[in-house]
């Protein structure tokens, strides 16, 4: 049985499912209770679960993310909502220096089963401080796991895995996807981390993407199909762990790869994946690996400039054509 639902509803329903099942799950965040959540993911949670499990916090990212880590160390399973990931930088020390490393520097005595979730990526005309993709920052650090669901099925599957694992998870949603619909299987639909999905088969070029960029890649593949180019589309789903095997397997067949990300080009996820392909499949490449990324600038406010700063379907199509030497 599968039901069609939205990305938002998948989040809500999965959180409820786990809160009903496991009393150790508590939520913390700004305005998640009385206000019902900035993106309404936690609407009605306060009345259902009470203020001990749905904790409205002050604007203290460092404080409440740190406190959530402490709760996790003592056996709770906190789920922190960051209003947007932009504000997580205030708690960077807690996430990167404590959550990511406690297991290691305690010699395995401590674990941190924590999920931090909220919207990542560009908004609409929110300019430089509110339109950032921070996955590469977090994916850089050993000890964290980084999940980026693209579809409602991803949301449920990845969140179930996050809520049942024993390590901290950076769960990056995308505000532009909250209304996206898709089929979500019921029952135990947990998607293990580190397993990419081939969303569309093709033999001419591999398009590798995650989060919102998966939808652009699928649209680009449609476009390419009309030109007679069959593009394979891979949805990575998690950056850490990264499913290099699915990527390499595909590139071995298509001999061409385009990696798509919304964030800045230098030192980003696409750079990591391009390097992986050159290490593992260099001999089989018929063209250099292409990267489609956001412009290397803080996000501008003006709508026309913002559109220039973001990757588009046409950029992916153009990159795919370049790998095929068809300009």
């Amino acid at each position, binding site marked *: 049985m599968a039901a069609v639902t939205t990305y938002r509803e998948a989040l809500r329903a999965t959180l409820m499912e786990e809160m009903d099942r496991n009393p150790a799950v508590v939520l913390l965040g700004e305005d998640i209770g009385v206000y019902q959540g900035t993106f309404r993911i936690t609407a009605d949670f306060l009345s259902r679960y009470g203020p*001990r499990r749905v904790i409205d916090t002050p604007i203290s990212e460092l404080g409440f993310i740190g406190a959530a880590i402490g*709760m996790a160390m003592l*056996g709770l399973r906190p789920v922190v909502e960051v209003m947007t990931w932009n504000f997580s930088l205030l708690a960077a020390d807690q996430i990167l220096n*404590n959550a990511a490393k406690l*297991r290691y520097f305690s010699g395995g005595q401590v674990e941190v089963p924590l999920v931090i979730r909220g919207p990542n990526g560009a908004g609409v005309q929110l300019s430089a401080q509110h339109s950032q993709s921070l996955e590469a920052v977090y994916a850089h650090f050993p000890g964290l796991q980084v999940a980026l669901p693209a579809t409602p099925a991803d949301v449920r599957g990845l969140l179930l895995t996050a809520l049942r694992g024993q390590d901290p998870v950076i769960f990056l949603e995308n505000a532009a996807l909250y209304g996206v619909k898709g089929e979500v299987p019921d029952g135990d639909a947990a998607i293990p981390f580190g397993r990419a999905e081939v969303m569309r088969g093709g033999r001419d070029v591999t398009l590798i993407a995650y989060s919102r960029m998966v939808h652009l890649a699928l649209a680009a593949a449609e476009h390419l199909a009309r030109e007679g180019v069959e593009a394979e589309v891979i949805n990575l789903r998690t950056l850490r762990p990264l499913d290099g095997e699915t990527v390499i397997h595909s590139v071995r067949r298509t001999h061409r790869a385009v990696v798509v990300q919304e964030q800045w080009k230098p030192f980003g996820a696409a750079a990591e994946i391009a390097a992986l392909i050159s290490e593992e499949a260099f001999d089989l490449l018929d063209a250099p690996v292409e990267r489609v990324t956001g412009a290397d600038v803080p996000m501008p406010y003006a709508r026309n400039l913002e559109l220039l700063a973001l990757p588009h379907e046409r950029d992916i199509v153009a990159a795919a054509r370049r790998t095929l030497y068809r300009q």
Partner: protein
Amino acid sequence: MATKRGEAEVQSGALADADLAEALPWYRLMLIARRFEDEAERAFRRGKIGGYLHLYSGQEAVAAGFLAVLRPDDIFFTAYRDHAHAIFRGTPAGAVMAELFGRQTGVVKGKGGSMHIFDVGRGFYGGYGIVGGHIPLATGAAYALRYQGTDRICLCFLGDGAMNSGSFHEPVNMAGLWGREGMCPIVYIVENNRYAMGTAVERSTAVTDLASKFGIHGIPHERLDGQDFLEVRRAARRITAQVRETGRPYAVEAITYRFVAHGAADLFQPYRTKEEVEAWKARDPILLLERALRAAGLLDDGQVEALRREAQEVVAAAVRYAEESPEPPPEELTRDVYAP
């Protein structure tokens, strides 16, 4: 009437004696902790210990006074000056020393070193190297203890310097809020040793009554003489009982002093005078307790000598153990990053 009062006096005198007798094992542990720090510093000079080494000498009565009354199932967090805390809690000195030596037998298998002593089995949730970074963790941990329906409590030791960071103000405000619902059984213990490295309190904060800073977050607070074990323990008994009972936070500013440099690698201490250090040494917490025990007839020259010798032996054995322990095997490098 007169007889009654006389009886009460006799009784309280007996209580005071019992109180002192219970302090004897803590005198012993403080001797071991002090000796441990001295030997750690020597090992550092011999190149046996790497990295940073922050010693606790001079401040012992603060941790000892509080840990003396902590229940075995209670928990605590501290910063990087953390060896004595472990020893007071019963972690074998050898396991702490082996950690400083970077050995497999260290408390955290050689992966943390001096700044990250952990003994979770004994409720010690760690030493932390980022100033102030552990304060939010301890606050959340206290919440978890209440959420789970227990009457366990959490202690959070911190330095005066840590109070100037955002990671102090944010969680302490939340503790004040959560405490209103009885959901934050934590005692914040500021070890005010007057300096953050070389920066004196007066040069880092406009309000030098540090205890009062908890007041603005609705947390009751007091100042204590951190050199006097008996006073600290008396206050700790009262405070921990109250926090356990109410689930509300409480804060203490213990006025204390470190006799040693900020870290073993700092040779010069241009921020303070020899006279200042000497004046504080006259109030050495071990000496003060020793005097009280002698005055009560609970300790004599022979016993002091025997206990000192025992401390030397315990620590010498710890150093031997550390020295003879193997380094962590290469497989240890990649272990403990994620759940097995």
